[in-house]
């Protein structure tokens, strides 16, 4: 557990270079910020401003070119790829714009997948996955494959999967980007509920102000830099 007051996420001068045909493209220019446990943060910014790049670094899917990243006091830059995998499995949940469910697996098996990599036995993980699906309101659809589910239902399965191993943080990159406003609202209600009731830290990228309004803090990116970091009340005002 975190020592009281210490941030769950702490990045210092984070930079990311992408090699391109025309030399190196720098997508992040010295991003420094802290996120405490239990926060609900929205990240906004124009297309190409580096939001996804930043999320991938926070989610330990990618490594920064320069700068440091401490997750729960651990220097992520020093971890091996196996340790990063374990971190992604236990501490982090992802929700993507495109859902990223495995199309050949049922909803239940998709949700059980992270538990398999956590080393849980078949029966136990199916039980836990079923419970998780019930919490997102899809207990009846556990044996449907993603193709047999609507976009909103698929995203709820993805949320159940992200929460299956009871992680402390959820990173969601435009989770409502493919959904209409009604289903977007359902998905956001789910997120808020888990944040409020379970204290799960939420970092969410969105282009829409009404989605960002669910968060209590809003960070704005522009050209790879943080240009604004404000509390929710100011955004709503």
């Amino acid at each position, binding site marked *: 557990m975190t020592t009281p007051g210490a941030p769950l996420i702490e990045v210092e001068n984070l930079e990311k270079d992408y090699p391109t045909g025309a030399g190196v493209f720098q997508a992040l220019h010295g991003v420094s910020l802290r996120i405490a446990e239990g926060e609900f943060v929205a990240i906004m910014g124009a297309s190409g401003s580096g939001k996804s790049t930043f999320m*991938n670094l926070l*989610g330990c*899917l*990618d490594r920064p070119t320069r700068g440091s990243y401490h997750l729960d006091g651990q220097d992520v830059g020093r971890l091996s*790829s*196996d340790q990063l*995998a*374990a971190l*992604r*499995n*236990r501490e982090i949940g*992802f929700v993507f714009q495109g859902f*990223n*469910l*495995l199309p*050949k*697996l049922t909803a239940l098996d998709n949700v059980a*997948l*992270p538990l*398999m*990599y*956590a*080393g849980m*036995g*078949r029966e136990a993980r199916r039980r836990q996955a079923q419970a998780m699906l019930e919490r997102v309101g899809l207990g009846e659809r556990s044996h449907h494959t993603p193709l047999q589910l609507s976009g909103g239902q698929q995203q709820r399965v993805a949320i159940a*999967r992200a929460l299956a*191993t009871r992680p402390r943080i959820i990173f969601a990159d435009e989770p409502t980007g493919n959904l209409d406003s009604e289903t977007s609202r359902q998905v956001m209600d789910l997120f808020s509920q888990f944040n409020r009731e379970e204290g799960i830290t939420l970092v969410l990228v969105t282009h829409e102000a009404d989605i960002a309004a669910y968060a209590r803090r809003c960070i704005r990116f522009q050209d790879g830099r943080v240009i604004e970091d404000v509390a929710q009340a100011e955004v709503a005002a």
Partner: protein
Amino acid sequence: MIFTSLLETAWHALTTHRMRSFLTMLGMVIGVAAVILMLAIGQGAQAMVRSSIESMGSNLFIIMSGAVSSGGARVATGDAPSLTFDDADAIRDLPDILASAPVSPGGAQLIYGGVNWNTSVYGTTPDYAVVRNWSMASGSFFSDADVRRGARVAVIGGVVARELFGDEDPVGKIIRIKQAPFEVIGVLASKGQSLDGRDQDDTVLVPISSAQQKIFSNTLRNRARFIMVQAVSEKRMDAAEASINELLRSRHRIGLGQDDDFTVRNLTALAETAASTTRIMSLLLGAIAAISLVVGGIGIMNIMLVSVTERTREIGIRMAIGARRRDVLWQFLIEALTLSLFGCGIGLLFGIGGAWLVERLAGLPVAVTPASVLMAVGVSFLIGVFFGFYPARRAAGLDPIDALRSQ
């Protein structure tokens, strides 16, 4: 990650692409079936050769009348064999020799009741039974006394007994060999095929004296077409051969530099050559079949590579939710192994079934040994690991973020 989860994942992946998995396995099925079948045929042939060699008798020489030219052809010696009964007796007295039997071979028609049968007739002595390791199914072999007095007695092989007598007991019956009446005094125990494919049970043995007088009506008495000799042991074969050569050259008064009028052949050595020929043949068959097994393995590698490329996004998703590199490696390796071992299992069924059919329909002797089954399983396992490893490592080496971005 637990092993059963890996198997479950592999099974799921393979059953979602049934047709593809089936076709990939087909290469292994055909390879394993071919290896099992070829080994079964080769080992069956070897077993047959081995039993023929055993039935021939051990540590054998055949001494033939007449020389053999350097090219291997018999030099014509007219109708007069150079070997005599006395030569055979003298050879028996050599220190390394156990038994020595002069033989006068020929063909003749046998008649019993209304039935007649053509077979090969050997005029010989009781030593022949020793040399050829013949035992009796019933009755007894003729004696030296029978040979001395030219008794009209015969010992018949199992095939002759069956053809002439059916279920009747042949011992004590009179048969006609080229019109001359002979009393059957014994039936030989069955030996089966000889190395050159002849049925050794289709034969009649009579005293050599009676054969020459009553059957072949030879003008030159006391001469034998060949002499069969058994040495005391395998170790003494070379010494025995040398002393036989020396003895016969002096008995036939062959001077230095003159050609022999006889030929000594080491039959046991010839049989060993035949045995090693079949061994090489069966190895060759197995090797050719093994090539198809390797081709099957390459098929697995090919499909696994396609599969890794196709499933890059899936790999990315698995990594994002916590799969370690070794989990991904195992996933693809187990898939390849499942393909190769399943293919192997089905191939074994087809191979063993095919061997059974070959035995049933073609009458060839086959032998599916536990060793060849174990080898097929082992090789399939190695093929799965060998050809599955490269695609699996490629999958495990993917960068999570690149894999996730791929379409």
